[in-house]
């Protein structure tokens, strides 16, 4: 169903010791989100506080905090994974320069027949680099939202781990597989947590994040050459 994308598939260099120390730096608490936002190329557009009202004295609030903190910990991990992966992915080429001969002596543009049928649309493979940047931006928004929900429920958001071990992916395929595994882990966790959250609106908030991760997974699968929608139900099975 897919047609060839514009990306080459070069073998990527393995992470050097310098890159590993960068990884360590990126994943340290405090600095991680800011650097990740820079890699994503976006800082302000993603901040969207949750408007779900949670009563911190309600029964089940403590368990909700535990569940939400578990999701937050995984979101931090995914931010670290995307932050590490983006520099390893082939960057898109710059747009082609405009042709020089655009003056009086330029050849006339080809005539376009307005009645000619449009060519059939092709499902193009997304650029892995652009997809990872987009998804990182969204992971940052998820973190903001989860932190807001945890505070509303009377809890304290967990902090990111000081270091995440993602191994040493060498090829574009390996980098994308790492991201895909990360998204699958998130899907399983949201799938497990969503029905257990106590107030119904909180389940809706979690479902909205779960569905966004399902989109990430689908697009990564498309880039990896896997069926993008493997099932009619997105579950942990």
């Amino acid at each position: 169903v897919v047609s060839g994308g514009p990306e080459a598939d070069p073998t990527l260099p393995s992470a050097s010791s310098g890159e590993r120390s960068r990884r360590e730096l990126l994943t340290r608490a405090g600095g991680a989100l800011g650097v990740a936002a820079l890699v994503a190329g976006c800082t302000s557009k993603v901040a969207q506080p949750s408007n779900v009202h949670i009563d911190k004295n309600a029964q089940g609030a403590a368990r909700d905090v535990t569940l939400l903190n578990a999701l937050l910990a995984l979101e931090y991990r995914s931010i670290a994974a995307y932050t590490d992966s983006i520099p390893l992915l082939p960057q898109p080429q710059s747009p082609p320069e405009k042709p020089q001969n655009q003056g009086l002596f330029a050849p006339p543009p080809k005539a376009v027949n307005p009645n000619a049928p449009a060519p059939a649309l092709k499902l193009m493979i997304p650029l892995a680099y652009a997809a990872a940047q987009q998804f990182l931006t969204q992971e940052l928004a998820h973190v903001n939202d989860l932190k807001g929900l945890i505070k509303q429920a009377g809890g304290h958001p967990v902090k990111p781990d000081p270091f995440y071990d993602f191994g040493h992916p060498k090829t574009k395929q390996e980098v994308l597989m790492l991201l895909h595994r990360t998204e699958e882990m998130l899907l399983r966790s949201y799938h497990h947590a969503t029905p257990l959250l106590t107030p119904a609106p909180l389940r809706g908030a979690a479902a909205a994040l779960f569905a966004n991760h399902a989109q990430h997974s689908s697009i990564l699968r498309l880039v990896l050459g896997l069926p993008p929608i493997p099932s009619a139900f997105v579950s942990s099975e």
Partner: protein
Amino acid sequence: MQEYAAEKSLDLGKLGPDAKELVLLIQANAKQHVARLQDDLQALRVPARPSPTIIPQDVVGLFSNINNEVSALQGLLQVESLVESAYWNAAGAFHDPRLSQLAAEILASQAQQWALLEALLHRGDPTKAAPFPYVRGAKTISKPHTAISS
């Protein structure tokens, strides 16, 4: 509603191979969603509604003027957004955790379909395929999504 949208798009006879494959997948998934919901309603001893014989006028209107692949996909996207909204509301409204989980599973499936329809319309642009960090759908039929020319 989604089966109707898929059927109308296929009946047009102007879908390219990729669009046709995706619409057939959407149609097959919609049938599975309906079957699962019917099973769950039966388990709850609630009679399932028969297939609606009347499709909402807004949805009929969407497909009365489709004349090419792009307009068919745009109509499907708009229906997809409505369906997403219904499942998102259901996920946050059910008190039975199992039903809430099922609604979330179907919402996520709809979100994937939405992403691929957008990817098809926008040459695989991931910023169009997954533009927002939250998937909540649309309560009403929104403006059609434009496609970039090839």
